């Protein structure tokens, strides 16, 4: 099953490589990875998505928790949560397809953030599923480049991941 694991870690050099190294060392997969500093400059927030059965996920979270640089961790998929993946996608937009791309973008509530005579660059945020659907909807369009941020996530309601 797909899981979104999010953690606060020391904003130290090497912390990220410990997390990533753990996954390859123990044969787990990282599907997406997103990391950036938080409002507290000593802490980074790292969110990753992975897949595995319950036993694997239990081992993954236990091992992540053991890393000295990991301060606190939550499996967001255990409760209600919001997830966002950000995509920038550059497509060929010429002729009849130019309008078509615009329409599809509107339907998905995306924005065209850069316009060229032959290309559009579209920005779209949402769940990973939504971004996948958008890419699927662009089947007839010539996709030139796709970049995604990886999932960032947060719990719904009062629940917070903080010290």
């Amino acid at each position, binding site marked *: 099953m797909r899981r979104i694991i999010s953690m606060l*870690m020391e904003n130290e050099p090497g912390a990220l490589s410990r997390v990533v190294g753990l996954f390859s060392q123990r044969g787990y997969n990282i599907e997406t990875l997103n990391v950036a500093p938080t409002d507290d400059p000593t802490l980074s927030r790292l969110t990753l998505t992975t897949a595995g059965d319950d036993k694997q996920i239990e081992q993954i979270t236990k091992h992540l928790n*053991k890393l000295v640089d990991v301060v606190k961790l939550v499996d967001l998929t255990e409760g209600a949560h919001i997830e966002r993946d950000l995509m920038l996608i550059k497509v060929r937009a010429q002729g009849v397809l130019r309008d078509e791309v615009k329409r599809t973008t509107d339907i998905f509530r995306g924005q065209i953030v850069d316009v060229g005579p032959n290309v559009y660059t579209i920005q779209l945020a949402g769940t990973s599923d939504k971004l996948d659907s958008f890419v699927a909807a662009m089947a007839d369009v010539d996709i030139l480049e796709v970049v995604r941020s990886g999932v960032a996530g947060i719990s719904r309601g009062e629940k917070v991941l903080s010290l």
Partner: protein
Amino acid sequence: MVELLSGGEMIARALEDEGVEYIFGYPGGAVLHIYDALFKDCKVPHVLVRHEQAATHAADGYARATGKPGVVLVTSGPGATNAITGIATAYMDSIPMVVFSGQVQSHLIGEDAFQETDMIGISRPIVKHSFMVKKAEDIPVMIKKAFHIAATGRPGPVVIDIPKDITRPDEKFEYHYPRSVKMRSYAPAQRGHTGQIKKAAKLLVSAKRPIIYAGGGVIQGEGSDLLTRLARELNYPVTNTLMGLGAFPATDRQFLGMLGMHGFYEANMAMHHSDVILAVGARFDDRVTNTVSKFCPGAKIIHVDVDPASISKTVPADIPIVGPVQAVLEELLAQLATIREKESDLPDQGALERWWKQIDEWRGKHGLWTGRRYGESKMIMPQQVIESLYRVTDGDAYVTSDVGQHQMFAAQYYRFDQPRRWINSGGLGTMGFGLPAAMGVQLAFPDKAVACVTGEGSIQMNIQELSTCTQYNTPVKIINLRNNYLGMVKQWQDMQYEGRYAMSTYEDSLPDFVKLMEAYGHVGMQVTQLSELDAKMEEAFAMKDRLVFLDIIIDPMEHVYPMHVAPNGSMKDMWLSKNERT
């Protein structure tokens, strides 16, 4: 008044303040400032090994024997990479160690500078944690943290990588060594969950066929006395892993011997047929469980471990308890007392009696200590060597070993009554561990008998340390079980490859070990006859201030038994001899 010290001096001073007894190391360019500081003013003696791998094993042996972290100092590049095998060895067996490695100057990092290696990167999967020093001011706190992390919770090695410029003598900083450290991101469990411990106590007293399976964590966590008390109060049988030998007295009637791949028949049978297993500080290693899906089918499992990741990793636990052995066992003993005050008929004595009767039957049938279980030979049998070693040292020696058949014979036939006496590489299985580890043990306990049980293959993997033994006068006794084969490899080739000995013999290339010992200034003796074995053994141990190497020619065809049947076998499926199976 605050003292001003250079980075190098701070390291020297911090090691003193930490109460370090020995530094095991080897110098080189990147650590010369540190060495100069040690030379000028440091009370901690430094042991110069002959290879950095041996520095880590010696520190490791010291740590296993004393319970205190071993300390290693190596230079950058090749010094650091040579230390890797020893760090991995300590990591796999959860041994506390702090390794200082030199690094090229900060401004050269990343430029493929002379003797540059990304030590933090290379060691990452085999350390509990690591630090790269960025500022000299951070050194005292970093060292304190390193020792704290290495020695608490599940122990393990910690690396501190130090760029040379950080230790330069001309820049001085305020030095203050912290008494303790707090880390927001590191808080190992201090005690178990009371509710879980209550449940465990109930399950334990309801058992009809109980067994206690105790591992290296009991030794690491100084839980042997409590475990022994618990086992005796309940009159439950105890088995130890290879790493746990000595956690429960081997000569106690309740001890069933080691369990696992080369474990005792009675221990493996009792595990397989048990209804409740109390696992303490043991990690259900694949050398123990055999096929996991067939592991102890009727047993409910209580698993006590300070590391949550050890619990339900391979075998699911029915009652997991995360906590250090001491605190958990104390609380468990208290809970058991409360229950048994109210229900004095627990545990069921009739059931327990039947269980012991069954166990004694198993013991009598195939137990390694209840009759001679090895064949006749004109040559000395390896088991006889260990029996002789046990007799001559009154069961009171520190015994280190290398890896192979000799290691298993030592584990099976030397009966360890105390923790920290049996010192071997179990998780990584590192040949070359035995001699340097014995050096570390002997330095920690200069007046004790220290034996290194080895094979002619393993001893050659760190034989250069004979010179270190000369320099520091460490009179270890090397017991070389010489079968002229990589015996454990040969055993597998006999059993699975129809005796095709691919690269498991050395033909006639072995050195004359007796002459070799003389060359190093030690004593070497060869033993070929059983009739002279005890006498030579006694002669060796009587030379209290000399390193003595006993080159004992043994029957090369002997195998280690019992041995789990694999693949697809369970705990109870064992070879008992070359042609006898359960």
